[in-house]
């Protein structure tokens, strides 16, 4: 028997690591991976609460989160490729203009 709060603390740790990576990383791909880490932390809390309340719909929400994350990854990585093609850099500090 593991208390439910352990799972929630683990998901909180993952989410905080994602937020920290989003703030301190300078590589645009690493920032994108931090967002994926945040989504994973939220997914864990969804499944933990589904176990707590015996509600299967929590798992369906995780399914939808994964679908949206897959779509986001496809579009986001295409945007990263387009940014790299025009600016020749992946450092977000040098990507500060909308129009070249």
């Amino acid at each position, binding site marked *: 028997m593991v208390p*439910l709060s352990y799972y929630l603390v683990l998901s909180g740790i993952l989410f905080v690591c994602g937020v920290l990576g989003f*703030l301190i990383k300078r590589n645009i791909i690493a920032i994108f991976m931090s967002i994926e880490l945040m989504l994973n932390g939220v997914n864990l809390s969804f*499944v933990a609460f589904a176990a707590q309340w015996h509600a299967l719909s929590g*798992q*369906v929400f995780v399914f939808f989160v994964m679908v949206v994350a*897959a779509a986001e990854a*496809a579009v986001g990585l295409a945007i*990263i490729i387009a940014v790299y093609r025009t600016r020749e850099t992946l450092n977000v500090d040098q990507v500060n203009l909308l129009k070249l």
Partner: protein
Amino acid sequence: MLHLILFLFFGAICVAGAVNLLAQSHPINSALSLIVVMASLAGEYLLLGAEFVAAIQVIVYAGAIMVLFLITIMLLNAGKEERTKDSRVAILIGVPGVMIGAVLVAWTLVGRSSTTNSVPIGALWGAPKDIARLLFRDFLLPFEVTSVLILIAIMGAVVLASKPEAIARPHHNPPPREERELVAVGKDH
């Protein structure tokens, strides 16, 4: 007892991978540690009894999405990230702010831990059949909307990642090669 040991084992791998993601300066190392995080999260889902979620976590997240990431990193030949002045500002302001938020969340969770009961191993009864019944009956509209979302995402990815000239001037293709060679030969004579 075994449940707690397994939870701590997978949780430790999970947190170590997440911290390693932050510590590594090369994006490919970050991506590999993110795969470790996702795989051990699948173990946590199995402990909770969510077999379906664990399976799609491995297939979709650790499989498909991370392959996309790795292909992009290799395609762009991403190197080590360099530290700039702005990153120092982000660390100075961001790290304390995030720590305050994390302490608040943890304090709330620990304070309310008496209202949440403990979960036995495999607490969910979520067989894929039940999830499918829920997905195709109660959540049918969101399910269909996500198919539209994925279609738009595919088109967006193709448009964004293709070369700009290919979209802007589709009719101004250079003449075929034999034609150009004939023109060049004609000029010589």
